[in-house]
């Protein structure tokens, strides 16, 4: 009579669920919380990245406006302006608009941050831009301003500048007021003539006449960009191909697609890594759900048996456990979505769209929420909880009502050896996956390897815990409590494993992350020592020191040995973020004296210019030592020789070092933007700074920024820490959730053994001894968990260090172990194990022994 059974089962279901949760809220809450954290992290990373991508696309639109195609200079030095008439006359080109594009800042002083002012100055020819990029013309600057005149001269006013709304507010001025803009080493006063009304108003853009830009910012004869509009109906691919053939080495074609890919490449590794971390957190949540559900199923075995006897089918029990899991998952997922939204808003507000990675400057993207990701992340949380409930549900359904009703405890035979092949097989598969190459520049197999190792480690726990406990057999002869504890853990490895899997999962992930971050930070620290050997550093953001200025600086009082260098962005490929060209004196025979080299270099053959690639550059562009590559710097022969690879953690998009004499020969550019120097004995950095400023022309002196090496180091490490802020936060959360999971699991397991304690009391074991036994059990479980978690975590950290990092960030590092963290983790876990077992034990023992035994019906 199924129609009558159903209401019974539904009532029973609801009653059992609510009763269980009411009895053990901690367990449900931890499981839901773990799911929530996974969902929150994933959702937040997704939201932040979505907003950042949106912002990036807007920025690209704001600066690039609406051209069909752009030709962009590979360096800020630009290309020869005669390319413009050549391209304008090319077949298929309806209009060409020349652009001087400079990175700039407001004010005449040095930039306030290391990252620059974030203002883009565009020098355009309004007459040409009108046909190609009308949105750059802004309100009040379009030629239709007056119906009366012939050519409105105000259009070419050399003192007039148009600002985007963001630039206007950053300038602190108003329309009609004067603002100072510094670019390419020149500070110039302009009158704000109007506001740009194009898209992407978040971006700081200043537009002025191209001739003024060339003249006042010292860029006569050079252009950084040409915007092109095609003839209607022309085939873009054909035009692109014919243009490509005409381009000099220092110019490249940029399309909306390549720009989008570039933006995507900029943050891809960072983003995917964080999303993977979120998935890992979700996995931990799944394990905690599994652990909680297993225990609750084990504890309620008699209840389930009774329900079966009353007529509930197996499928009904299965559904029961699944619904419980689904509810936990749903609550966790909803909580996680809310939390994720909050985290995303906070992060965008305080860290910016790149999660503190330093890719975007001076902008706060708007949060973009669409329904699809909301559903996806909700679903992920639900699935994690359901998968976690799968095994417990099957077990509940398998129970034989007769035996289960009597609650014989662990159904396993204490003498049976737990199987190891399952877990070991997964571990081996995980190890093998680590050796597979990256997929599309992403370390997907690396993450798969970590996932497999995690699953394998957890699956091997029954076997492993027995191995770990076997040396202790016989240790507890003299103490009943210890002997009892050991015997129990030995005899019921499956239950121990249930308790352990949550601990092992969260501990190992935490250890892996901690080892990776510690290794990276340690390597960065060493590297900073290597690259910052001198006493004082200073730089100008743009323009630079010519030979005359350098001579003045070198002869300033207090200045000892001094080394000048220049860093400038270089676009090697249109769809990759620009890398950094590092111009400095490099001893070609001994490059390791100037650069932190990795491995051996090869001397360049005669007549070929050597360059030294940073590790990320070599990996990103697939160049090996001894190869030749194209360095798009202009000059007759753009081919250079890769003479070596050096370590670099600062420029994730890559860096190429070139000897300064070679650079000047190739480009004709003799200016240097940075210097590092030794102080003469007894000279303070401040005094040397004053002397250098005094030696320079006032305009240049005003732009110089000084750094003491120690200060620089602190800044670099602070930047490092801020870019790992989210990782640290994740780690802290993982620790808290892991400990909470351990506590909930232990207390649940202990409470489930009320009957056993009653029995022990009956046979004469003292209450004190039971507490001792529980403390020993808890501590042992904690210890086993720590050992397994550390082992597994270390293995996973090696995958992170040697697979995930080289594949996604293109750098390598040496493993460093955060021993204090390990020690405190060990203590915390063992203490938490013992402490919660004792606390729960006291509660379990508070009922009198007689009643406890009577539970055996």
């Amino acid at each position: 009579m199924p129609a009558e059974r159903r209401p019974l089962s539904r009532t029973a279901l609801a009653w059992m669920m609510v009763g269980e949760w009411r009895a053990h809220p901690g367990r449900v809450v931890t499981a839901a919380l773990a799911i929530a954290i996974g969902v929150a992290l994933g959702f937040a990373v997704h939201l932040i990245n979505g907003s950042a991508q949106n912002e990036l696309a807007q920025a690209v639109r704001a600066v690039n406006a609406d051209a069909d195609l752009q030709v962009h200079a590979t360096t800020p030095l630009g290309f020869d302006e005669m390319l413009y008439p050549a391209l304008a006359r090319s077949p298929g080109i309806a209009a060409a608009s020349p652009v001087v594009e400079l990175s700039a800042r407001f004010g005449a002083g040095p930039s306030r941050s290391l990252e620059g002012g974030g203002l883009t100055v565009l020098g355009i020819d309004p007459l040409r831009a009108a046909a190609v990029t009308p949105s750059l013309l802004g309100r009040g600057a379009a030629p239709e301003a007056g119906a009366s005149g012939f050519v409105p001269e105000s259009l070419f006013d050399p003192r007039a500048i148009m600002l985007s709304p963001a630039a206007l507010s950053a300038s602190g001025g108003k329309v009609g007021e004067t603002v100072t803009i510094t670019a390419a080493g020149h500070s110039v006063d302009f009158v704000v003539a109007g506001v740009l009304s194009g898209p992407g108003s978040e971006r700081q853009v200043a537009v002025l006449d191209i001739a003024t830009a060339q003249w006042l910012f010292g860029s006569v004869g050079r252009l950084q960009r040409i915007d092109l509009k095609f003839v209607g109906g022309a085939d873009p691919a054909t035009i692109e191909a014919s243009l490509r053939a005409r381009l000099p080495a220092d110019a490249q074609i940029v399309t909306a697609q390549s720009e989008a890919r570039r933006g995507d490449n900029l943050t891809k590794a960072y983003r995917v890594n964080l999303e993977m971390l979120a998935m890992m957190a979700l996995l931990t949540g799944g394990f905690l759900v599994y652990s909680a559900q297993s225990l609750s199923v084990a504890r309620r075995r008699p209840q389930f048996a009774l329900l079966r006897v009353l007529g509930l089918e197996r499928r009904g029990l299965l559904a029961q456990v699944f619904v419980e899991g689904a509810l936990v998952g749903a609550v966790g997922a909803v909580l996680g979505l809310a939390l994720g939204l909050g985290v995303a808003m906070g992060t965008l507000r305080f860290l910016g769209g790149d999660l503190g990675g330093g890719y975007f400057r001076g902008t706060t993207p708007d949060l973009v929420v669409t329904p699809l990701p909301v559903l996806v992340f909700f679903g992920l949380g639900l699935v994690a909880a359901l998968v976690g409930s799968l095994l417990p549900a099957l077990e509940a359904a398998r129970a034989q009502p007769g035996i289960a009703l009597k609650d014989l405890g662990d159904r396993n035979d204490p003498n049976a050896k737990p199987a190891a092949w399952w877990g070991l097989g997964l571990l081996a598969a995980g190890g093998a996956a680590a050796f597979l190459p990256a997929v599309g520049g992403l370390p997907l197999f690396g993450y798969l390897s970590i996932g497999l190792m995690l699953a394998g480690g957890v699956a091997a726990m029954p076997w492993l815990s027995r191995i770990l406990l076997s040396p202790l057999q016989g240790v507890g002869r003299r103490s009943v409590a210890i002997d009892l504890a050991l015997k129990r853990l030995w005899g019921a490895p499956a239950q121990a494993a249930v308790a352990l899997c949550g601990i092992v999962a969260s501990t190992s992930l935490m250890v892996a992350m901690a080892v990776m971050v510690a290794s990276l930070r340690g390597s960065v620290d060493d590297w900073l020592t290597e690259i910052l050997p001198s006493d004082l550093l200073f730089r100008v953001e743009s323009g630079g020191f010519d030979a005359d200025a350098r001579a003045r600086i070198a002869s300033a009082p207090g200045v000892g040995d001094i080394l000048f260098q220049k860093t400038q962005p270089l676009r090697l490929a249109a769809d990759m973020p620009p890398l950094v060209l590092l111009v400095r004196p490099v001893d070609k025979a001994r490059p390791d004296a100037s650069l932190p080299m990795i491995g051996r270099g090869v001397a360049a053959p005669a007549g070929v210019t050597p360059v030294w690639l940073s590790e990320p550059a070599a990996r990103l562009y697939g160049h090996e030592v001894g190869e030749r590559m194209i360095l798009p710097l202009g000059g007759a022969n753009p081919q250079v020789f890769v003479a070596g690879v050096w370590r670099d953690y600062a420029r994730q998009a890559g860096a190429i070092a070139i000897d300064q004499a070679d650079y000047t020969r190739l480009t004709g550019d003799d200016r240097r933007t940075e210097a590092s120097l030794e102080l003469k004995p007894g000279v303070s950095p401040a005094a040397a700074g004053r002397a250098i400023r005094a030696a320079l022309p006032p305009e240049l002196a005003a732009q110089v920024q000084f750094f003491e090496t120690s200060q620089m180091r602190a800044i670099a490490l602070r930047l490092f820490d801020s870019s790992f802020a989210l990782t640290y936060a994740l780690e802290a959360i993982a620790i808290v959730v892991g400990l909470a999971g351990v506590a909930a699991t232990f207390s649940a397991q202990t409470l489930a053994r009320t009957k056993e304690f009653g029995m022990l009391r009956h046979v004469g074991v003292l209450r004190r001894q039971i507490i001792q036994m529980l403390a020993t059990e808890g501590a042992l479980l904690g210890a086993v968990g720590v050992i397994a978690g550390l082992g597994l975590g270390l293995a996973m950290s090696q995958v992170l260090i040697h697979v995930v990092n080289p594949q996604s960030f293109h750098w390598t590092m040496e493993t460093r172990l955060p021993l204090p963290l390990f020690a405190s983790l060990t203590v915390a876990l063992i203490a938490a194990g013992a402490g919660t077992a004792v606390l729960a034990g006291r509660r379990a023992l508070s009922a009198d022994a007689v009643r406890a035994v009577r539970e055996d019906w």
Partner: protein
Amino acid sequence: MARTLKLAGLALLAWMLTAAAPGKPVLPVFPEVRAGQTLTFPADHGAHPDYRTEWWYVTGWLKTEDGRDLGFQVTFFRSRLSVDQRNPSAFAPKQILFAHAGLSDPKIGKLLHDGRMARQGLGLAQASTTDADIVIDDWRLRRGADGRFIAKAAAADFTLDLAFAPSQPVLLQGDRGFSRKGPLPAQASYYYSLPHMKVSGSVLQGRRRVKVTGEAWLDHEWSSTLLDPKAVGWDWVGLNLDDGGALTAFRVRDAGGNALWSGGSLRTPDGATAHLGPNDVTFTTERIWRSPRTGGRYPVQRELIVRTPAGERRWRLTPLFDDQELDSRRTGGPVYWEGAVRAPGARGYLELTGYVSPLKM
């Protein structure tokens, strides 16, 4: 010691001159138009970049193979801007070139027009000083070695591909090319015309290329101070008379619509030229057409009364059609009316400027 100090001072000064933001701008000096200059050709067909404003104005009537009448104009302008002459950039907007082309097709009933505008330089826009040769991108007006002018202008709705062969000598306006435009002697321009030029070539409309013949008129004029400050615009007409004669008449108006200055010339078929002064030219208005786009009220049908030594002559000017307004604000010009007109025994072009807002040069 003093010597080294002086040297240091000099170095500092030199550095300040090169590195400091430009101080006082160096503005161009525009030469005045003076009487008594002799125009020499072909150099004076070319550009005069020192002067503030210059134009080459070709207007005319075309006849298509199937016998339809079309009006056309191709105009190239040069404008010297009052910007800092020290700017070494090739983009420095010292000279701006712009051009308009218009086609009056009665079948369409409104003027089709387009324009080009660019700063001179980098080979994309230039005006030769040795002969007429003005280039803006793909538009060009050039005088060939055979004396024929070639004009090419690809507009959005049509393309003009025309050659003009002079059939008469150059007509020097005013006093041997010195043409007064206002009450002050400095308010003048150098001005000559080439009437009765024989047109050949083709007009492309849509996908249809039509062979055309006809008669055109070229005006070339340059000046630095053309208009009186009180002037708001002018009316100008150039008529190719059927008997081979050529009539030029203009008047500069003030805000009240009264003539500040008038002038022109009448060359008879025998080559004798009568120069017309302020009292010799009268325009009357017979009909006003109101532009639905700009609201400008143009006297498109009028009677032109000219006092010549041989007596008073009248021409009743009727437009080919009313809507020949040209809004060239997008390409650097004003809104004006430039249309084909006919009169008994004559065909030509009428230009009406300053009817939407005062014209500034």
